[in-house]
């Protein structure tokens, strides 16, 4: 699904991302962990062709993401509020995103019905622009809009931050469910090791842009990670 080759990115002489080789198979749920400055978000941005790598390439379904926009057909993402058009109402935003993927207003409405539980009655028909929502609720809008695109590849940067506990649990169930039923490939970054080991089938640990550890999760994963971070 995703192939990373000799990816390098630096800022002001400091290397931020330096990944020699990384292969991701379809249906995997990848947890990206690492302290601040490890290069998680920069990596995501390069994966989404928002930053030009200094060297190397990222292939999505064998096509370099920087050369063709084909990956946009099956990739959905939510990194931060910069992905939301914050002067729209959530309904307008969903309709707009839906229209990009050929969904009619009625389709979008149908789709949103599934997420009533996820929204917990706080998003739709509130008569507010997205910018007037709390950060957690903005997160919900961004994540729901990403899922609505029925992606094959989903990229979420710290999706659990700012979410209330109920929504955190619901989101985890949702991602697990989608990866088994629809073979959704997911990238998640998080500072919460519990969540990551819980949801992800594979964990990649970054330090100063380099992959230090790359393993499939089992019952010992959490301990292993905690041991690394408490050193």
């Amino acid at each position, binding site marked *: 699904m995703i192939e990373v080759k000799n990816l390098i990115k630096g800022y002001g002489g400091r290397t931020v991302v330096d990944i020699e080789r990384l292969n991701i198979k379809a249906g995997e749920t990848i947890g990206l962990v690492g302290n601040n400055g490890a290069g998680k978000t920069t990596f995501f*941005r390069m994966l*989404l*062709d*928002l*930053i*030009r790598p200094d060297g190397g390439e990222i292939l999505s379904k064998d096509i370099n993401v920087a050369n063709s*926009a084909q990956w*946009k*057909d099956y*990739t959905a*993402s939510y*990194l*931060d509020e*910069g*992905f*939301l*058009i*914050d*002067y*729209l*109402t959530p*309904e*307008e935003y969903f*309709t*707009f*995103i839906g*229209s*990009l*993927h050929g969904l009619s207003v009625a389709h979008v409405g149908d789709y949103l019905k599934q997420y009533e539980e996820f929204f917990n009655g706080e998003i739709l028909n509130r*008569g*507010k*622009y997205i910018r*007037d929502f709390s950060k957690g609720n903005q997160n919900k809008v961004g994540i729901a809009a990403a899922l609505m*695109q029925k992606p094959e590849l989903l990229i979420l940067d710290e999706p659990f931050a700012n979410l209330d506990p109920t929504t955190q649990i619901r989101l985890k169930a949702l991602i697990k469910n989608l990866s088994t039923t629809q073979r959704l490939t997911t990238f998640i970054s998080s500072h919460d090791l519990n969540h990551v080991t819980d949801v992800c089938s594979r964990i990649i640990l970054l330090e100063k842009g380099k992959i230090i550890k790359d393993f499939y999760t089992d019952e010992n994963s959490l301990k292993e990670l905690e041991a690394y971070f408490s050193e």
Partner: protein
Amino acid sequence: MLSTFLSHQWKSFWRSRNKAGSIAAQVVLGFFMLYFLIVAIGIGLLMETIIGKISPGANPLIIFNGFILYYFLFDLAIRVQMQELPTLSIVPYLHLNISRKTIVNFLNIKSLFSIFNILPWFIFFPFIFVSVMFKQGGLVGVAYLLSILGLIFFNNFFILYLKRKSINNVAIFGAGMLLILGLVGLDYYEIISIREFSNVIFQAVAKYPFLCLVFVALGFAIFTVNSSFLKSNLYTEELSTKDDKKASTDYPFLNSFGRVGELAALELKLILRHKRSRSSLVMGLLFLAYGFLFYKEKQLASDQFGTMLFAAIFMTGISIVTYGQFMFAWQSAHFDGLLSNKINFKDFIKAKFLLFTIGSTVITILSSFYGFMSYKLLLLHLAAYLYNIGFGTVLVLFFATNNYKRLDITQSASFNWQGVGATQWILGFPFFLVPILLYVPFGIMNKPYWGLVAIGLFGLITLLLRNYWIKLIVNRFEKQRYKIAEGFRE
């Protein structure tokens, strides 16, 4: 305590994140203020001579008296639009052990540091010192001074009170302006005379100086009302503008343009839902009056379009220039989202062209009222319009691919230098020079209409080549997008 507050304010200004921008703005503002002050002092000192020139033989004092209330009426109208509410800066202090009285006092004192409160000193005081004090004695002079100070106080706190109480500034501003223009009209046709009224009042003050205390009392009264209102409503939620329920909107007209129309609708919402873009829209409409300055009977009669060309290009292209100069930065807050979503760059650029074309068309139709002045102006506007939608749009979008500065669109546009970079300064030259250069040879040969044809034809040809330009700009956009996105993230 108050001095601590003021020193915090001072620091917040000097340490603000876009310091260069705000300092530049302050310097320019400073120059404006200096200019106004010099003009004001000039008016103040030369008041007697000016009055003598305008209405010879009249008693300067009577004219001066008549002018005072007028001034403060206009002052009120302008303050409604321009005076800022000092509110947000108090948020970090509200939860601390500081009495409400201190905070309210701080807000009140801070509001006094305003150009509107200083200007009258320079306009009125010289005349009062020179003429009133010498001729009518010190007591009368002091009475005048106190009256003026009272009026300044009154206006300052009255507007703050009004603004705090009400939400819709534009409506009040419009109503206030209409009221004042109405009064001026009534004065002109001698139905009701404000001048007369003002004169009667100040003659009374001259006769019984203690009457000036009425103004002082008025000022003090509104100050007290304002303070007590503040004290009992010291919640930032209630002091700032209130939110009404927001509804989703749809523009059926734009939907007929498919994907491109959707993107244009998105941007139209952006324009209407942000302070900065909204105020440039209003400015664009105000600039429709530009023609009255530039279009002169004499030049129209002799077909000298060269001098009027600038105004025509400016008016019909105002939407392209004011909105286009910051182009792509309007969307800087969600630029990453636009890039990573399934949006075709070609549609993205086409949407901008569509929006510009609609904007320019609307404003050109509005500007056609100049046709009453002379049918020739319609020809001039047509040529300018073709130039704007043909070449102007291309130029603006091409420059936009070099603009990497993030724009904060939640702030008002007047005196806002945030997000201004080299692009905005350079853009104006080619935009206004090209049509003038096109016209000049024909102007010299004394073939003005051929000059208009040349500009119009140039516009038309570039318009017909639009698909080519779109391809060119899309290519450039694809190359530049990383740099633009990076700049917008800062």
